C-alpha cells in the first residue's frame, strides 16, 4: 500500500519564496537550480503532511520526531556541509561560491552518523555538565541561533531579532 500525498504548485511557490527570503536575510542562499530547489520544497511539504515535521527530503524519516530532530530542515549538518562542500546534502542551500559559479555543485557524502553512533553520541552529550562550559550559551527564541558569550548580541545576526528575544540556554 502506498500513500501518495498531493501538494499544490501554490503551496510550493509560497514556501519557496519564504525560504528564499529568509535564506538571503540570514546570509544563506537557495540553490539557483529552481527546478531542483522546488522539487525539494515539495518534498518538505509532503513530509510535513506525512510526518508532521520538515523531515529532510533526501533522507528516510523514521516517523518519530525525536529520532529525526537532527534532520529537520534546516538540518544539523547544513552548515558544516556548506563549509566543506558548498552545499547541503540535498543541495537546497548552497554557498556563495557555488552561486557565483566558482565551486561546482554535485552530490556530497552523507555526514549524518549511523543510528548506533547517534545513540552513542546522545548518551555522551547528556553526561556533559553545565559547569564544564567556559561561557553561558544564549539562544535566540526566534530562530534558534546559539552563541557562547557573556551576554547575547544586540541583534541576532541570523534573523535580526532584538536582544530581549534571547534566553539562557545552558
Amino acid at each position, binding site marked *: *500500500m*502506498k*500513500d*501518495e500525498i498531493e501538494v499544490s504548485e501554490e503551496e510550493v511557490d509560497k514556501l519557496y519564496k519564504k525560504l528564499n527570503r529568509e535564506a538571503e536575510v540570514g546570509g544563506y542562499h537557495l540553490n539557483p537550480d529552481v527546478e*531542483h*530547489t522546488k*522539487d*525539494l520544497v*515539495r*518534498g*518538505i511539504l*509532503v*513530509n510535513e503532511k506525512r510526518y508532521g515535521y520538515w523531515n529532510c*527530503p*533526501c*533522507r*528516510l*524519516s523514521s516517523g518519530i520526531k525525536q529520532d529525526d530532530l537532527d534532520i529537520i530542515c534546516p538540518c544539523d549538518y547544513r552548515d558544516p556541509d556548506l563549509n566543506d562542500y558548498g552545499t547541503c546534502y*540535498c*543541495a*537546497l542551500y548552497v554557498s556563495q561560491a557555488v552561486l557565483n559559479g566558482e565551486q561546482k555543485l*554535485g*552530490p*556530497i*557524502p*552523507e555526514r549524518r552518523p*549511523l543510528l548506533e553512533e547517534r545513540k552513542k553520541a546522545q548518551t555522551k552529550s547528556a553526561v556533559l555538565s553545565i559547569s564544564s562550559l567556559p561561557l553561558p550559551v544564549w539562544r535566540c527564541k526566534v530562530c534558534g541561533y546559539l552563541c557562547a558569550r557573556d551576554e547575547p548580541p544586540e541583534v541576532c545576526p541570523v534573523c535580526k531579532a532584538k536582544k530581549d528575544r534571547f534566553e539562557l540556554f545552558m
Partner: protein
Amino acid sequence: MEMDHVKGKNKGHISLYALSTCGWCKKTERLLDQAKVEYYYTDVDLLQGEEREKAMKELKRWNPACTFPTLVIDGKCIIGYQEDEIKETIGI
C-alpha cells in the same frame, strides 16, 4: 521484492532505490528517462511495514549506509547522483 518497472531500451539490469521526495533521486530518474532505458525502481519512503523492511534489507547489502539514490547496474552499485559515472556505466 517487487519494484516498479519503467519500459525502455535494455542496457543491463538497472535498479534504483529512491525516495519520492528527494531531489537527487529525481535527477537520477530524469537521466534514465531521458536516455529511455529500461529500469526498475522503488520509492522506499512510500513503502510500509514488511515491504519497507524488505527493501531496506536489500539496499543495505549494496549500500550499508542506506542513502538515496542508490543505483545498481548489473551488480555495480553507484551511490548518489554521480552523473558521469552513471552515464559511463550504462553507456549513454
